[in-house]
């Protein structure tokens, strides 16, 4: 059960063309930049990405340099302001990449359902909006809900603060975000961390992602991302 990999390249070696990949992170917090850049270097094509955002405080937009993305599933992709357009936005406007937008809470809950064995769930979010297109609507106790299905992926790329060799993960500040849910919902879960320690060195009360969810661990490089509106 050795989970520690010598490099990001080794940890993602079996990522294939056409893979669906979840990327943790929310803007600059908890974004798995080392793994993303290794994916860019590896050059696999036709990726469906699932992430909260692209092009805001993350390096996912780098994957657009060589047109590696086929589709993004996310809640935040096109900035409302007249700020500089991301490569993703440019490619989206040229019809070169697909975008499936959904509410952030629905995205998080669908991923949780994918990891928790829930077949589908009803959420009030999006009722009466474009989100409800083609979805089953149901009135429960006088309130309308939409039926949403689980999301899973072939791989999840995570960023955590520390891992022990078993794969337990701890995070810092607001970097748990989508990392902690995506850890549960992919066939192969790969975490880059600032530090790898021995089992027993992490306080079990502090562990956010229990080891059962993590398949591979790699020490990440330090990438500082300064991004804010």
């Amino acid at each position, binding site marked *: 059960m050795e989970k520690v990999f010598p490099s990001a390249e080794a940890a993602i070696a079996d990522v294939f063309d056409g893979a669906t990949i979840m990327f943790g992170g929310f803007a600059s917090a908890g974004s798995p930049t080392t793994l993303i850049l290794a994916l860019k270097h590896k050059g696999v094509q036709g990726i469906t990405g699932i992430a909260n955002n692209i092009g805001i405080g993350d390096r996912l937009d780098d994957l657009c340099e060589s047109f590696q993305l086929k589709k993004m599933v996310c809640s935040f992709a096109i900035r409302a302001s007249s700020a500089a357009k991301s490569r993703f936005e440019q490619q989206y406007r040229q019809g070169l990449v697909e975008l499936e937008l959904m509410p*952030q809470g629905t995205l998080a809950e669908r991923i949780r359902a994918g990891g928790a064995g829930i077949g589908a769930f009803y959420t009030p979010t999006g009722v009466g909006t474009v989100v409800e297109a083609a979805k089953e609507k149901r009135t429960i106790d006088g309130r309308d809900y939409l039926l949403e299905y689980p999301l899973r992926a072939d791989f999840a790329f995570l960023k955590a603060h520390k891992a022990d060799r078993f794969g337990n993960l701890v995070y810092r500040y607001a970097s748990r975000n989508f990392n902690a849910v995506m850890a549960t919902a992919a066939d192969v879960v790969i975490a880059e961390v600032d530090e790898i320690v021995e089992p027993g060195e992490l306080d079990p009360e502090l562990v956010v992602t229990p080891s059962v969810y993590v398949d591979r661990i790699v020490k990440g490089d330090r990438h500082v991302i300064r991004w804010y509106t």
Partner: protein
Amino acid sequence: MSSAGTRERPTGLTRELIAMRVARELRDGMVVNLGFGLPTLVANFLPPEVTVLFQSENGILGYGAIIQEDARFDQDRINAGGQPVEIVPGAAFFDSAQSFAMIRGGHIDVAVLGGLQVSEKGDLANWLVPARGGGSIGGAMDLAVGARCLVVAMEHVTREGEPRVLEECTYPLTAVAAVKLIVTDLAVIEVTPEGLVLKEVAPGLTAAEVQAWTGARLRWTDPVPEMRL
């Protein structure tokens, strides 16, 4: 009522004063989520006797001031707008699924969101300008259906002088019948089951003038007081 397009835009409150007015809605002990842009400013105008906990949907309950010093920048310690923030004593961190469980489950007392359009039934449109395309939903749809009280803070009219408060929104909706209070540079308007009630007007404006800049029928009782700042 919607033919205001050719008139000169009225002079109303600054963004800071709108934020100051919104801040008066907050009561001691409330849990509050502030959206991007104008709503963010609300945190600067809390009365000293009022302590609220700010929730950020990326996984913080209890963030404080925006950090300006470069040396203290930390990319994992950001709010949902990507801004580096202080963490206040008594804070807690959680992941995105937990954060939206908190939001959707009705545990946020007040959400303050920016708006593009609000209808007299309280429908909100704030995620997509159709002419610009793309769009970003982010946490807005979940916050709009989940918060116990939804306040929209926005300019009363567009740059072109078109009303943003309308009988029906023409932009794609964020949520249906969700808005409780509209605070603009010209007025404070309450959304009630009987329609829009003009509660306060900006200094120097009459109720009739506000009505003229509004695309839906307002009700009021004379004299309409000036906005409390």
